[in-house]
Each structure stands twice: as C-alpha cells, then as structure tokens.
C-alpha cells in the first residue's frame, strides 16, 4: 500500500494541508467542516500504518535537514511515539466532528480561524509524537503552544486574553528558560539528541547532576502541568470545549507527558534513573500533585474546572510512572496516555454537549438533567469509570500496572496514594452523574438536540470500553519501549 516514508509524510502533512486549505474551503461551510474529519481519517490511517511497522520492530525515519553535527531535523518513530501518534490522530477525527457541532450549535465566531489553528495544533502534536530527537521535539512542542494560543483566546474577551497570557507565559517561559537549556545540556554532554532505546545518559553525565537535569525537564515541560506550574490548565478552561478536548486529550497535555516519558525512557534510560535514584523526588512531587489536585477538584462546582483539576491529577499518574522508572510502571504510564485520552475526551465532550444543548456549566445545576440527556450522561458515566479505573474499562489496565510498578519498586506509600486518589475520583467524577439521574430537577432548561455533539462522546465512551478488551495492541507497543 503506502511506503513507510509516504505514510510518515502523509501523517505529518495532512493536518498541515487541512490547515492551509481551510481558509480557502471556507466559501462553503460544509467543505470547510468536512476537511477536518477527512484529514483526521487520512492522518489516522497513516498513523496506523506507521504503528504497525513499529510493532514489527522497524523504526520509520524521515530525514529533512542537517542543522549542525549531531543535530538533524529528523523524524523517527519510537513505539511511544507511535502510540501518541495514534491517540492524536484518532481522537482528532472525533474532535473535528464534535467541534463542528459545538461551534455551529453555539454560533461561535471565527470558525474558519478556529478550524485552521486546530489542524495546525494536530500537525504539531503529530510531529512531536514522531520527532526523531529532542531538538525536533522541542521545536514542535513550541509550535504546539503557539498554535493553541488563538484557540485558547478564541472568545477574545478580557478573561480569555488573561487566560491566554497565563497560558503562554507559563508554557513558553518554562520551555525556553528550563527545557531548552536542558536539551542543550544533553547535546553538549553526549553530542547527540537522538532517542535511543534504553537511554544513553548513563556514564555521560555525573549521577549527582542527573536529578538537576531531570528537574529542568520536569519543570521545563510546562504542558505536563506538574504542580506548581499547573495554573495554565484551569485558566485555559475559558476556551470553547473542543479546545479543552484538544488540550486535555488530543494534543497539549499529552505532548507534555509524552515528552517526559520520552526523556525518561529514551534519553535517561529507566535503568540509569532506577540505579541512581535521580527521580525519587519526582515520585513524591507527582504523588503530591495527584492528591492536591484531586482535593482541589472536589471543591470546584464548574464542570470544566473540575475536569481540569482531574486532568492535572491524571497527568501526574503518568509522570509518576515515569519517575518510578521500572519497566512495568513505564508501561502503565504509557497505557495511561491512551486510556486517559479516551476517558477524558469523553468527559469533555459531555461537558460541552451539556453546555451546547442546555447551557449548563455548574455541577449543582445538573440535578435531574440525566433523563433529559440520557446518552450524554451515560457516556459521562462510562468515561468517569474508565478514569477511575474500574473494569471492564480501559483505565483499569493502566492504573493496575502503575500500582504493580509502585509495589515492585518498593513505594508502598504510593500504593496508598493511588488508592486514596481513586476514592476521590469516584466522588468528584461520579457526583455529576448521580445528581443527573437521582436528584430532583432544580432548574428547568430547554434542551435543544444537536446530534453532532452527542455522537462523538458516545463513540469515545464505547472506545473506552473496547480499549479494555483490545488493549493488546497498545500493550505490545508499550512493551517494545522497555525492551532495549
């Protein structure tokens, strides 16, 4: 069918082509709105093609230019990258469909601009996923930040502008001031930035300096929303819901944790981290973030704000897995990228659907609305269960593996943290559902039906369910990550 080379080109360029075409297709809204989902399907096919090749043990490569010795503009797909590429492109199809419904249903302005930048963001996410070295990763990480700024500030209100400012200052600031020096540090001490199975920092840098370098990465990647640099994420909630989906599930935060996982697995090497204990501090910091943000989430009445804090908490699961740096924990963390993406995008789709159809944003207003929007609430329920980690849903795999990893590495306290956080999850994620179904109505609202915002969450909810049974594909890829 396609050669690997072509597949990579298609996967990287299709979203960009969509972005460039969007303004021209805008003469007919249908053309413009169809471009996103079609581009998504094409990208997804390419991503599947690439992922299958990776599963066969290949490393698809795409060389663009040589910048300086040891520095190339090159794409090379790692198993982890293949997974992230699948997540980003696959969810883009649904997110694109959904945003059409949302934007139309909500009568938002500047829909063309929105669609174009959305596609650019997906392009950047694909490029991050398939990047061949840290430099390329860094560049597209930045492009991702810049391309999502117009999306975050889409409403152009003072509130949106302030949120955009915070978003940009934290993400750009941390990456330029911490991440870039970290990248340069790696290059200067090893002469290369390529990703290699098993990592290559062992023996190249002083083990005493390793925690510092790791800290530069952990805090430099603001998108991983590790406390205390998490503030941008709740602030960005002012954006339209499809953007939140993009931020939380498809691209932005996933690019953050993807970067951290990549650095841990392919640059540091989990053996190196485990031997030196350089990531010990990160285990505790992420555990703290998990609990603290769950606590904050409980106090939020705004649906999206609660989901945002939930995301911060879930991201730290992934960082935690990376920090534990054992084979099983890293696999768990990788799976959690997939599972959380499917679960969280469902929740956001539902939140958006509730807003578009009933104009409700507060959890306290949801009482009794379950019967008005049964499909939406059912999807929400399934997504929530997946994130909590209850079988038979996808999220249970990743959480289980993380717990096993924690025990294996002797972090028994962490097991307690994970358990406690699951309990908190149960409370703050299931509360909206139980209110919807079991409480009497407090507010009568007119519910208008918009199928385009209902179908995607139902599909992603089903996806969460399927991921439990068909996890092998991802699990196999994740396993490839740690076999060097």
């Amino acid at each position, binding site marked *: 069918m396609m050669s690997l080379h072509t597949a990579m080109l298609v996967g990287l360029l299709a979203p960009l082509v969509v972005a460039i075409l969007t303004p021209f297709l805008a003469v007919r809204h249908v053309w413009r709105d169809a471009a996103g989902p079609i581009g998504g399907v094409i990208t997804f096919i390419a991503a599947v093609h690439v992922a299958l090749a990776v599963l066969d043990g290949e490393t698809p490569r795409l060389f663009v*230019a*040589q*910048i*300086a010795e040891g*520095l190339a*503009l090159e794409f090379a797909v790692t198993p982890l990258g293949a997974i992230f590429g699948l997540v980003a492109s696959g969810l883009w199809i649904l997110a694109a469909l959904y945003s059409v419904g949302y934007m139309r249903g909500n009568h938002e302005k500047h829909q063309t601009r929105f669609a174009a930048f959305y596609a650019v963001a997906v392009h950047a996410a694909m490029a991050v996923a398939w990047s061949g070295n840290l*430099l390329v990763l*860094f*560049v597209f990480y*930045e492009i991702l930040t810049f391309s999502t*700024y117009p999306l975050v*500030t889409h409403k*152009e209100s003072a509130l949106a*502008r302030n949120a*955009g*400012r915070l978003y*940009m*200052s934290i993400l*750009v*600031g941390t990456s*330029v*001031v911490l991440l*870039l*020096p970290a*990248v*340069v540090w790696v*290059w*200067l001490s090893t002469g290369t930035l390529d990703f290699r199975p098993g990592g290559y920092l062992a023996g190249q840098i002083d083990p005493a300096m390793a925690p510092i370098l790791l800290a530069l990465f952990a805090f430099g990647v603001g998108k991983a929303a590790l406390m205390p640099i998490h503030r941008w994420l709740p602030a960005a909630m002012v954006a339209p819901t499809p953007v939140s989906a993009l931020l939380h599930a498809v691209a932005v935060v996933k690019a953050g944790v993807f970067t951290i996982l990549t650095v841990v697995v392919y640059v540091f090497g989990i053996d190196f981290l485990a031997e030196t204990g350089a990531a010990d501090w990160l285990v505790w910091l992420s555990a703290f973030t998990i609990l603290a943000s769950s606590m904050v989430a409980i106090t939020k009445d705004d649906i999206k704000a609660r989901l945002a804090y939930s995301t911060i908490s879930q991201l730290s699961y992934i960082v935690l897995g990376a920090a534990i740096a054992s084979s099983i924990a890293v696999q768990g963390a990788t799976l959690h990228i997939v599972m959380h993406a499917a679960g969280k995008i469902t929740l956001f789709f539902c939140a958006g659907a509730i807003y578009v159809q009933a104009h409700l944003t507060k959890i306290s207003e949801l009482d009794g609305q379950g019967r008005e929007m049964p499909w939406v609430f059912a999807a929400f329920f399934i997504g929530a269960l997946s994130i909590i980690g209850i079988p038979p849903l996808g999220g249970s795999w990743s959480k289980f593996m993380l717990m096993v990893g924690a025990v294996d590495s002797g972090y028994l306290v962490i097991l307690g943290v994970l358990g406690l956080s699951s309990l908190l999850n149960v409370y703050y994620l299931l509360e909206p559902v139980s209110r919807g179904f079991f409480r009497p109505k407090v507010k009568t609202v007119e519910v208008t039906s918009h199928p385009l915002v209902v179908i995607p969450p139902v599909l992603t909810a089903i996806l969460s369910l399927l991921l439990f049974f068909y996890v092998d594909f991802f699990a196999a890829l994740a396993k490839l990550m740690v076999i060097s």
Partner: protein
Amino acid sequence: MMGAAILTNLPALLVVVPLLLAPFSAVLPIAGLAWVLALVGTGISFLAALMLQSVTENGVRISYHLGNWEPPWGIEFVVDSASSLTLVVMSGLGFLATLAARRLVAIEIADKDSGKFYAAWLLVVGGLFGLVMTADAFNLFVFLEISALASVILIGMGAGTDRRALVAGYHYLVIGAVGATFYVIGVGFIYAITGTLNMGDMASRLPDAAGGAALYVGFGFMVAGMLVKAAIFPVHIWLPAAYGYAPSAVSTMLAAIATKAALYVLARIFFTIFAGTPEIVDIALSNIIVPLAVGGIFVGTIMAIYEADIKKMFAHSSVAQIGYIALGLALATPAGISAGFIHIGNHALIKGGIFMAIGGFVAALGARASLETITGIGRRMPITATAFLICGLSLAGLPLTAGFISKLYLVRAILETDSYVILALVLISSALSVVYLWKVMEVMWMQPAPARSPKLVENPAIYLPLWMVALGNIWFGIDAGWIVGAARLAATALLGGGA
C-alpha cells in the same frame, strides 16, 4: 582581460564603488534615483564580497597593494577568510537594509535631502568595508572617521521626527572622536617602537621591539578606542540613543553592520597585530574583555527590560548581543572565535530584521513605537508583526532559528574552556532576555488594539525585504553549515598568526 582586472581589483572595488558613488548621489535631485544608486553601490559590494569569499574559502589570503606601493611603505588591503566572512555579512545586510530603506526614507526624510541622505549612507557602508579590509593601522583611522562622520549625519537626520536625534548624533560624534583619538594614540606608541604602520609588519616586529610599558599602553589605547566604536560596556553609552533616535532605515543599517566592523577590527588587533606578544593579549582578554563582555550582556539586557520605547529597547539589547560576540572572541579559542563570528552574522540578521520591522510599525503608526503605541499591532499588521516575531524568536535563541545556532556554539565554546561561572551567567542573561521579548510580544499579540484605532497599512516595500531577513533567520537556523564552516575558517585564519 577585463574580467581579470576586475577580479584582481576586487578589494579596492568593494570600498571605492560606494565611496565614489556618494558624490553622485549627493547631487541627484530625485530621491528614487539616489536610492537606486545606493542599491547599486551596496549590491556591487555584496557581489564583490561574495566573490572574495569564494576565493578565500580555500585559505587563500589576498593582499592588495593600493597604488602598487608594496607594504609596509604603501597601504595594503588584506582579505582572508575572516574578513571576507565579515564583509559578506555586512554587505549582504547592507544591501537588504538599502532595499528596505526606500519606503522608510521616503516617509521620514524630506525629498530634498534624500540624495544627500543616500550619499551619507554609501559613505558609511564604504567606510566600514574599508575598516575591515585595511591592513594599515593609520589608514584604519581614516576609514573610522569616514564611517563615523557619515553615521552622525544619518543619526542627526532623525531630527525630522524627534529632536533628540541631534543630541544622540552629537554624543556619538564626540564619544566616537575621543575613541578614535585613543586609537590613534595607541597606534602612535606602537609606531614608535616598531617604526611601521602595516599591521602584518607590526606583528612581525613587535616580539623583538624594546617596548616595555609603551607596548602595553599602545595596545591598551588601541583596544580602548575600538571598544568605544564596538559599543562594549561601559563605553557603549552612545549606542542606545543613537540607534533609538536615528531614522528607522538608519537604525536598521547601523544595528546590522556598524558595530560588527569594529568588533572585527578588535579581533584583528588581538589576533593579528599582537599575535607575536600573546601574553599581553591573554591578560587583556581574560581579565578585561571577558568581564566587560559579561557586564555588557547584563547591563544591556536589564536596561532593555526596563525600556518602554521599542527602538531603544532593542538598542539596549544590541549592547547585550555585542557582549555575546565579544565574549566569544575573547575566549581566544578556535571554538570561541568561530562562535563570535557565527553570532556576527546571525546577530546582523536578527537585528536587521527587528529594526526593519520597527521601521514598518513606525511608518504605519506615524509615531514612535513604544509599548503603548504598538498595543495589539499583531492583528493590525500581521505580515510585519509575524516577521518581527520570527526575528524575536531568533533573538531569544529558539531552535530552527539562527539565534539558536549562535547560542549553541557559544555555550559549547564556553564549556570547552571550563568556565562554568561564565556559562551560568550567559544562561541567566539569556533567560532574562526572554523577559523583554515577552513584554513586547505580549503587548503586540495578546492585548486588544486601542478602540477607534485607524486601519494600519502595510507596505510591501518594507515587508518584502523584512521577510527576506526573517526567512534568512530560519534558513540559517536550519542549514547552519555555511556560516559555521566559514566561521571556523575565519577563526583559523585569525589564529594562524594572520600577518
């Protein structure tokens, strides 16, 4: 036959063409024609520089005897890989700045003065080329004065829109004259102990010269004079006002090429003239120039953070960037000097683009560009502002831009010398520079334009050259092979004893 004559006379051509076109430009009554003349002058220089570069690429060193009088009796021009790289950078950016000048000058300078304006423009450019090529210590002073006086005129022309330009021009004149006189005093001492004015000849005679304190002081005064011209902290005080109040076109040209020539001359003093007495150079570099460079980096960056006027902000930033170049050169290792040369080229691209874009803003706004007036300009002038953003990212040193390559090689050169304190300082200052860039970008892109603001018109005569420079920033960020290779050769040529 004709071709060969042109080829052998390339070095002279490079200087003489702009200088001799100047009088013609001065008497041209039509602004457009004068501009064409300036464009032709800088264009020919650029071609000549490229040809020289291709000749010197193989390590060839061209010695051109003016009037066929052999050195040290006559005056000599020397072009090696170091000077040819500097010349290519200067003439290339000079050409692009001229290209962008058309519209900026039409707006800011009275039509009647345009011919004379371009005459002064050509004089600056020609003078700077001469500065780079001449191998005669006193002849260098003459070129220094040509370019300085002509620069003063150009800066003074800013009085058309802001009277403070006059004061800036006056200060540059006086400070520059004092600097040049210091240089002449230094040359006097070296002449007294060697009996020669030719740089190569000086270099070979200095090790045997009974100099004593005269040698040290001569060296010191020559360096001090050029430090003023290169605007190295703490004698940079003339620069922020001069670049800040000069007409936009002039800021572009000066920021891109003027201090580069002086920095190159400094390198020549260190590594060619005093190659035979390395102990003096080493002491001066590690104890004086390195601390001054680092000081300049910090002072420039911090002043830029507190500056609200955009032009002056980036003028302060130039002080900091010059500090990076000087730091690279002062490391005196092959890696350090090539890092310095890489940044000479890249900084010219960055600042050239930034000042062109500011010129575009000023032209459209009809007012000085300050944090207040450029509020929300990102959406009002997207073409110009995007190019400005690219150059700004390059200044911050983001990957895939030229600025990243500079920082990378500079950091590596510093690491090679194991000076971790300097490395830390460079990294901190580099992070600080994000602050003022952020301030500008935030105001431009993230704040709404003031209500009732008129529509701003973007002019292709400004943004086309601007985008050429902006794309240059990306091009040399992705394919840095040419500049890195040329800079390595330059370092080899300089450290190879020169002469």
